[in-house]
């Protein structure tokens, strides 16, 4: 869009930055991408997100917006075509609920399965599976959480299809159980193959190696 400056501060392996990339792509918004070196955060990042000092940060005409789900809502309210959230207040509340559920329940459980070992790990994996099963109930019989097309919850949760698979392989746990959550399993395949989303996904091999490295550090620290 002419006359607008949109910048995204992100990190190639960050699932939260991926959410914003997806939203910007779906809305066909041109933006400048700034890759942060996370062990070495830029003065720009620290200035634009002094409270949390983390990516993603969207900077629109010099004004920063932080926190991925908040950025998604900002994008949806600022660029009104190709809506991400539904119109109806109750459906919006449900979308917000499931996005919140992902961040407050699914993410910590998956992280816990990734960083722990032995019994702690299995306990966390079980909790993660339960949470994912609960998330599946929100799909109903639909192709996407957003209905016929990708919406807020799809954007919020899609990354799990990559990351959880990495965690499964690296930490040797079962998270996305095809038998007990067939609909969610099918949705993961569908959402990561969706035209616009597919293009933004980080290279899988690189991501796996990156997370493997992470795992080594985390488990060395806890053993």
């Amino acid at each position: 869009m002419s006359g607008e400056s949109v910048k995204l501060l992100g990190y190639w392996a960050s699932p939260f930055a991926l959410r914003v990339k997806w939203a910007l792509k779906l809305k066909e918004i041109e933006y400048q991408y700034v890759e942060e070196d996370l062990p070495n955060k830029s003065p720009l990042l620290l200035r634009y997100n002094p409270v949390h000092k983390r990516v993603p940060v969207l900077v629109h005409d010099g004004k920063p917006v932080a926190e991925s789900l908040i950025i998604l809502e900002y994008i949806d309210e600022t660029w009104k075509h190709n809506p991400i959230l539904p119109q109806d207040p109750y459906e919006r509340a449900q979308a917000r609920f499931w996005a919140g559920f992902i961040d407050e329940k699914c993410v910590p459980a998956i992280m816990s399965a990734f960083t722990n070992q032995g019994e702690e790990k299995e306990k966390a994996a079980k909790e993660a599976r339960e949470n994912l099963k609960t998330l599946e109930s929100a799909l109903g019989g639909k192709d996407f959480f957003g209905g016929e097309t990708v919406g807020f919850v799809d954007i919020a949760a899609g990354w799990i299809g990559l990351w959880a698979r990495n965690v499964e392989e690296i930490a040797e746990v079962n998270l996305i159980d095809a038998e007990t959550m067939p609909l969610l399993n099918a949705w993961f395949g569908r959402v990561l193959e969706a035209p616009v989303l597919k293009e933004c996904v980080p290279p899988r091999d690189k991501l796996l190696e990156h997370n493997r490295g992470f795992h080594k550090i985390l488990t060395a620290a806890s053993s």
Partner: protein
Amino acid sequence: MAEVKLLRTWSSPFPLRIVWALQLKGVPYETIYEDLSNKSPLLLQSNPVHKKVPVLLHNGNAVVESLIILEYVDETWKENPLLPEDPLDRATARFWARYIDDKVLPSIWESFTKEGKEQEEGIVKAKENLKYLEEELKGKKFFGGDKVGFVDIALGWLTYYGSLFEDIAGMKVVTKEEFPLLSAWAATFADVPIIKDNWPSRDKLIAKFQAIRDSILKE
């Protein structure tokens, strides 16, 4: 007129956010008090995932999670808007509301449920968190500007429960010296009629939270 029901407990600050929002907008509603040690079928049915209050029932729909309910209320009843118009201002309000629930509240609770050195460290952390909100108040009467808004409602518990916690735990977090703006805001906010009229009994709350603190410290 569509039916509106609010499931709440007498003591939890989260349903209070919804009480304030509904009353500020002049929305008539019915209150259903829950006993969380004996959750009603209605509560379990309408909030099966978290089984918590508040729950807003409207037109047969159940909306849960207080900040999400606030947005639903704001979108459904347009009088006295809680969120500002401008997308950037809205993003800022949402940011601070989340910050309050994710950082401020836990750090105050942490200080409340500890003693000695651990409590001191908790207080330092809580004050660090509150500094950002102090900044945010510069030049404003309320976080929402001239009127009570989204962030005021999100932080409102601090003006009553916060001071309660301080008294019970023998600590002082929101000092006038370090937080002149927050202190002034707390007085202004607590004086708004709708806010003033809806606080639960201070004595009952003190008894309840004293008991909670005692049992946590025993562990």
